[in-house]
């Protein structure tokens, strides 16, 4: 090898080493001491072993203001590239907090956008790992435009490729809006997301609040509903991302993998899980686990709007999205947060051809001024809209209560359900017997010599006539009344039959969902 070759190779190696060294040993040690992995370690944990390939490692900032040209920022504070997850290609960016605090400037944004563009071209998922102090102030408007470039791509890619955000450190200000546009947000226990941090909050409003109380993982997973998943540390969090991707297709032109599992039919247990007395509560997750392939249920937003359960599972190896009223909380009634939670999930599944299974046991939309003034009409409408708009296979099981508008909203026949099953204990009516009799029997009860006896008589009549699934079955709103032990096989059969379903919507630029 001649000396020119050698010099060139040495120069390349030196540049590579500088990039690999990131922010230096001291900052890496600090990152580790706070329980966090480095950007490249995160990539290694995210992708199948040995498959991560870094792209554009030499991109660097062109900014010279405020002495920026004197500062060394290897990789410009982000690592981007591709690799394989479960043998399928995926693209990712991982902000490097050891380099300039992971702050985002023009060059970092360009690196991220280039990876996003490749993900779109390859029709592959994009994962964004966030650990950044925010906009690089020295780069001014170029930094802000960098965020805009990312938000724009997030929006264009929405519904085309799955986009997952992973928050593993600070994510503040405008930076929050990229994760917010993506499909799923993972957070670690020590991460934070907020539009304005505690110091600004104090200066503007006088409120004193810690970072964790303002925008920690606990807040976003249980109160705001911003985060879908929370894990204690980086490694478990990235395993969670890998697990989620196992349920998803690569894009809207692909199908989820069939993952053969243990298909144990536990339907026989269902009659002992669900009490026939509709006032008694039970955990609907036990119903789900009895119906789906063993250990395949992967719950989403488990601490937020706990009156409705959503998540992915597999039936005969095929991914399904599950929406289920949870009788343990608010008796499974629908309210603002539950409507938002379920409708966004339904729309995700519809984007990516994931069939929907709805388990219904719903007494009503939650009444009260708090809900009305909070816009339950607007939020509840999202659920109706999402189900009506979805063209994927839609199967419902009415387990117990299905009353009024909430019945309609939970994937009823009228909003496009393909197959609706009901158990013999199902009660499908405009409202429960007590409320109904108080309205329709008011005059008769008042005129009666024995109002209590009359009320009892009318209750019995209403219960006998309406509180069952047979009128709905006679009118074609329920396709079949089934026994609990038949449930899994019936549902599996329905999804198998519906696999070739084709239903198209009339041409439109896009619908106008009530946001």
């Amino acid at each position, binding site marked *: 090898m001649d000396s020119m070759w050698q010099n060139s190779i040495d120069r390349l190696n030196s540049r590579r080493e500088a990039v690999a060294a990131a922010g230096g040993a001291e900052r890496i040690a600090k990152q*580790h001491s706070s329980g966090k*992995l*480095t950007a*490249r*370690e995160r990539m*290694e*944990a995210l992708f199948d*072993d040995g498959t991560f390939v870094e792209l554009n490692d030499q991109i660097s900032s062109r900014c010279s203001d405020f002495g920026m040209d004197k500062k060394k920022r290897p990789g410009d504070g982000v690592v981007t590239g591709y690799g394989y997850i*479960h043998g399928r290609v995926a693209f990712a960016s991982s902000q490097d907090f050891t380099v300039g605090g992971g702050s985002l400037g023009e060059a970092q944004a360009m690196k991220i956008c280039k990876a996003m563009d490749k993900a779109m071209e390859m029709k592959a998922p994009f994962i964004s790992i966030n650990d950044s102090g925010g906009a690089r102030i020295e780069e001014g408007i170029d930094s802000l435009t960098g965020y805009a470039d990312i938000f724009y791509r997030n929006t264009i890619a929405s519904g085309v490729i799955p986009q997952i955000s992973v928050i593993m450190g600070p994510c503040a200000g405008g930076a929050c809006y990229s994760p917010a546009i993506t499909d799923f947000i993972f957070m670690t226990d020590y991460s934070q997301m907020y539009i304005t941090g505690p110091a600004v909050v104090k200066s503007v409003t006088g409120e004193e609040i810690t970072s964790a109380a303002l925008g920690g993982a606990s807040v976003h997973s249980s109160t705001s509903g911003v985060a879908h998943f929370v894990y204690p540390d980086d*490694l478990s969090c990235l*395993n*969670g991302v*890998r*697990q989620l991707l*196992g349920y998803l297709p690569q894009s809207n032109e692909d199908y989820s*993998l069939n*993952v*053969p*599992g243990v298909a144990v039919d536990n339907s026989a247990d269902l009659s002992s899980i669900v009490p026939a007395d509709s006032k008694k509560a039970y955990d609907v997750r036990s119903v789900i686990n009895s119906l789906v392939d063993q250990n395949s249920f992967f719950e989403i937003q488990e601490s937020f709007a706990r009156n409705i359960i959503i998540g992915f599972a597999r039936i005969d190896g095929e991914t399904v999205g599950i929406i289920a009223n949870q009788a343990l909380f608010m008796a499974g009634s629908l309210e603002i947060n539950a409507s938002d939670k379920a409708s966004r999930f339904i729309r995700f599944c519809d984007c990516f051809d994931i069939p929907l299974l709805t388990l219904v046991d719903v007494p009503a939309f939650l009444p009260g001024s708090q809900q009305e003034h909070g816009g339950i009409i607007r939020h509840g409408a999202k659920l109706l809209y999402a189900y009506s708009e979805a063209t994927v296979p839609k199967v419902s099981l009415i387990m117990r209560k299905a009353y009024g508008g909430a019945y309609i909203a939970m994937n009823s026949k009228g909003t496009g359900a393909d197959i609706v099953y009901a158990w013999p204990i199902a009660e499908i009516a405009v409202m429960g017997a007590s409320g109904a009799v108080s309205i329709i029997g008011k005059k008769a009860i008042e005129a009666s010599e024995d109002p209590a006896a009359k009320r009892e008589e009318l209750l019995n009549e209403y219960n006998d006539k309406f509180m069952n699934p047979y009128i709905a079955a006679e009118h074609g709103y329920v396709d079949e009344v089934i026994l609990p032990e038949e449930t899994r096989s019936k549902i599996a059969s329905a999804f198998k039959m519906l696999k070739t379903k084709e239903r198209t919507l009339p041409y439109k630029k896009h619908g106008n969902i009530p946001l």
Partner: protein
Amino acid sequence: MDESLIVAMAVACIAEENGVDTKNVVVRNFKEVAKSPLAQYIADNNISYHKYQLGE
């Protein structure tokens, strides 16, 4: 494990994967691959970690 045993195991794997006899595999040289930064971090901190694989 000493080096000769590691090389013997590697030869056996290569032979099996390629469907050839071990006698036909010639080792010209070998080098020990350093632990990745993540593997090193996990080892240094005695972290119990298993990467999630599909279907688990």
